[in-house]
């Protein structure tokens, strides 16, 4: 778009105050990025978070429902669970991978869900900050602990 330099005010309103020798001052577009503009911190984080909830959700439906079926329904339900049962299952890399994937996806899915809940209901900035700090700390701790347990499991511990 070319800017009309001969007159900022049309002939209807009267004679222009500006001409070629006396140009109007340049007004910056209000949203133009300049050197003084703070660096943009906008990312697509929330979009990826939204997508992650759906993708991990589909995988978790399979992982968790089979987990419940094995642990609580088949072969005597909860009655058969014990150290020997865990040792038997974690002897197989398949179930180790299953449980590891389930741990990571469920913890991240749950943590992101709780982050949304905190954002919705905790209104004071301080409360939000501390609740989310607590959430992230507990999440990192639990994920690392669970991962360590799966990788260092020793069936002959005693």
């Amino acid at each position, binding site marked *: 778009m070319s800017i009309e330099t001969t007159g900022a005010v049309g002939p209807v309103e009267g004679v222009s105050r500006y001409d070629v020798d006396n140009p109007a001052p340049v007004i910056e577009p209000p949203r133009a990025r300049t050197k003084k503009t703070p660096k943009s911190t906008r990312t697509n984080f929330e979009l990826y978070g939204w997508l992650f909830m759906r993708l991990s959700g589909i995988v978790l439906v399979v992982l968790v429902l089979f987990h*419940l079926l094995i642990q*609580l329904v088949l072969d005597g339900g909860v009655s058969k*669970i*014990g150290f020997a049962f865990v040792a038997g299952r974690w002897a197989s890399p398949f179930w180790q991978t299953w449980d590891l994937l389930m741990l990571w996806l469920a913890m991240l899915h*749950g943590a992101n869900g709780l982050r949304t*809940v905190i954002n919705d209901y905790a209104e004071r900035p301080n409360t939000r900050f501390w609740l989310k700090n607590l959430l992230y700390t507990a999440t990192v701790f639990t994920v690392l602990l669970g991962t360590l347990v799966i990788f260092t499991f020793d069936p002959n511990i*005693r």
Partner: protein
Amino acid sequence: MPAGTLYRGREGMWSWVAHRVTGVLIFFFLFVHVLDTALVRVSPEAYDDVVATYKTPLVALLEYGLVAAILFHALNGLRVIAVDFWSKGTRYQKQMLWTVMGIWIVLMAGALYPVLGHAVREVFGS
């Protein structure tokens, strides 16, 4: 005060509330569950001790509640995905919720005996 101004919500709102509540409950259980499983790194006895509490009748009832929460969250989550990605998802969201509830009731009935059977036998003897 004008009568009938309280918004009582419809299928969409209440399924959203239930999805939140079940999600938070499941997440809190998950923390406890990772911690109790971590006891396999302490000793077989420590793990078997804590698992023994999972086998008591009262906790069996809580497990049935956990299954209820997880099944609803899983089925309704699939409905949410359908609402988001299926072009007719919003039009059929109510029908999908009643489908979810139907499947939920069937699965909960199926889980009744496996999850609670041993608790019933313990309480009432057999």
